């Protein structure tokens, strides 16, 4: 009876039948607040789907008129920034090339350095300093892209001029370095160097977390066999972290593909397919920078054409990101316990990298739970010791 009274006062509207059922099945009753809250959170989750569908839908709606327009005879499209192209595809083709080319150069410059930094922080730097050094690299991610763009204009452009001259003089027979070398420095190389700086933190922080996850026993086994530190890293750290590093690199590529301001500010572009990196007028323009430069001066239909190029950029970066996650999901072994410990020690300083690390590690953990690789070894040790004692 007392029970009934208690539940009754808590949920006045439910009546005696509700309380007796609660007593029988011992189940917490769903109060109105409960139901509303569950509805709210489920609704928010559903809104994510709506938003993403909206992004794709509205881009398509706006882009379709320009994609299927007659580019040669349309008075809007055959003048201004979109003038002189037979169709949407001949317009966007060189832009796609430029986007991929600039990102590829940035990746070639940035990825090895980023992996080196990750290795330095995870395995070479003194333990006490590692956290601070990692935070310093993460600070690079906090600098707004526009600031990097301005920095590129007044620092990187003149800085690269002597290098450009040297490369052009001595290696000019390679198409990459050929052509009339730029005197202002507004080259795709300068843009790519700034892009490389921008993708450093994302590749570094993911690779670092992966390197730190290497099973301690693997490392110690390699060292015990007389390996030097570098051989230990080749034997134990790299094989373990390979898929994570590849997916980190791809996420860096995804970032570089969509980066706008550094390219728009630094290079003096032309819409053409060119492999030359050091020239003034033969820098392939990227999709993002092209949109940023032409959007304010474009007419309605030209804007729709630019939105069409943006749609293609969306598709490309989506493909790269999904590829990165597929590769990450094939990662090797690791333990969930370790991951939680590390996360508890270091609050994530850059939320956008947390997700990728989390992704890689969660899948690793799921896989290793099935294998039970790292957990069992100490137990075997213990049993052996006990056997000897007895």
């Amino acid at each position, binding site marked *: 009876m007392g029970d009934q009274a208690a539940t009754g006062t808590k949920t006045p509207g439910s009546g005696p039948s509700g309380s007796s059922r609660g007593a029988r099945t011992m189940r917490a009753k769903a109060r109105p607040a409960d139901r509303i809250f569950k509805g709210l959170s489920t609704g928010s*989750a559903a809104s994510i789907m709506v938003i993403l569908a909206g992004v794709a839908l509205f881009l398509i709606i706006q882009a379709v008129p320009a994609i299927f327009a007659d580019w040669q005879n349309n008075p809007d499209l055959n003048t201004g920034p979109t003038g002189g192209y037979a169709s949407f595809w001949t317009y966007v083709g060189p832009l796609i090339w430029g986007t991929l080319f600039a990102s590829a150069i940035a990746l070639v410059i940035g990825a090895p350095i980023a992996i080196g930094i990750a290795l330095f922080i995870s395995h070479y730097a003194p333990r006490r300093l590692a956290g601070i050094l990692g935070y310093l690299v993460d600070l690079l991610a906090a600098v707004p892209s526009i600031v990097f763009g301005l920095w590129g204009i007044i620092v990187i452009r003149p800085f690269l001029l002597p290098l450009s001259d040297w490369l052009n003089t001595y290696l000019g027979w390679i198409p990459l370095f050929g052509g009339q070398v730029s005197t202002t420095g507004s080259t795709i190389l300068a843009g790519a160097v700034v892009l490389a700086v921008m993708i450093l933190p994302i590749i570094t922080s993911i690779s670092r977390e992966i390197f730190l996850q290497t099973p301690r026993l693997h490392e110690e086994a390699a060292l015990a066999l007389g390996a030097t530190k570098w051989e230990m890293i080749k034997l134990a750290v790299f094989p373990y972290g390979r898929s994570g590093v590849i997916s980190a690199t791809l996420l860096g590529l995804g970032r570089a593909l969509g980066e706008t301001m550094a390219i728009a500010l630094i290079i003096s572009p032309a819409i053409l397919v060119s492999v030359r990196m050091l020239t003034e007028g033969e820098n392939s323009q990227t999709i993002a920078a092209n949109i940023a430069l032409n959007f304010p001066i474009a007419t309605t239909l030209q804007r729709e054409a630019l939105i069409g190029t943006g749609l293609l950029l969306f598709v490309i970066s989506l493909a790269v990101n999904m590829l990165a996650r597929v590769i990450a999901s094939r990662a090797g072994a690791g333990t969930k316990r370790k991951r939680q410990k590390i996360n508890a020690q270091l609050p994530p300083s850059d939320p956008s990298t947390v997700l990728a690390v989390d992704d890689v590690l969660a899948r690793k953990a799921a896989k290793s739970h099935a294998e039970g690789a790292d957990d069992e070894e100490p137990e075997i040790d213990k049993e052996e010791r006990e056997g000897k004692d007895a």
Partner: protein
Amino acid sequence: MSATISPSRQPSGRVANALTSGQLPRFVEWYVLGGSLALSAALLLLMGFNIAGWLVLTAVIYLLALGILSSVVENRRKATDRVIRGLVTVAFLLALAPLISTLITVVANGIGSINWNFITQTSSSVFNADTLEVTTQVGAWQAIVGTLIITGIAALISIPIGILTAIYLVEYAQPKQWMARTVTFLVDVMTGIPSIVAGLFAFSLFSLIVGPKAFSGFSASIALAVLMIPIVVRSCEEMLRLVPGDLREASYALGVSKFSTITKIVLPTAIAGIVTGVMLAIARVIGETAPIFMAASFTDNFNANPFDGPMQTLPVMAYTGYKFPGQDIAASNASAWGAALLLVILVVILNLIARVVAKVFAPKGSR
């Protein structure tokens, strides 16, 4: 019986220690570094000195010298090891160079244009009737207000959606459920959206609703929210998963409802991490240029109404100051740098708040 202790023979003279022979002395790296610094300085003094060249040449000489020294005294494996150690360290120092250089450049160029008037005035042209001269007045007040309004609305939209979605994923959804898996996947996909595409989306959306001249601050907020929601979801999800399951179970065992468990137990435990994540997400989107430029365009006029007309923001001010300068190019560039410095200061403040919050509100107890 026969095991007698024979008088050990004292070694005559110094004998090489087997443990340290065939090895370079302990601080050899520092000696080599000092040597290569001096050598490259001497070489460059003959040709013409500059700091960058000096450091690069030093690194090259250092790596070569250490490699040769080690492969002569020690062996090839150890030489490789030492060279790699050097390379990795160089890579790290190489990453610090742009960070330091960027900050120095921004401060050096921006400090000149930042003063009280720059912060509190709007840009405008003032016509002086006596001298018949038009003087341009440089100010960033409209951009500061615009940045705060646009980012504020974006945060108001994305923080509730982000936190509630994270709560759905952690507290309500079953891991195998199709909706949970889809939402997780879509959040991943959303983090990959290039910022300029978010701007195009907001512009498309509003030009379908409002018409061709659809620039407004609210539109830019929508674009920023698209970029911010996935960041908030993932950092909150991470923090909610760190809350021990024991706490939830203890609460359920006392008969507390799910709603009360989440709001009274789970969220307070994770609040420090959530606030940190939200602050860092705001710091991330406050510096976005491309989406705001697409959706809110740019203007020199003061406009505090997010639903009508173009709105100026700090990053866009920095961009347009350089790319589309006014008649006085030097003044435009100076104000661009001033805006960039203000932006960096804002980002630093947000980061510091995030750090302080993480420290102060960290859950007390065993952790």
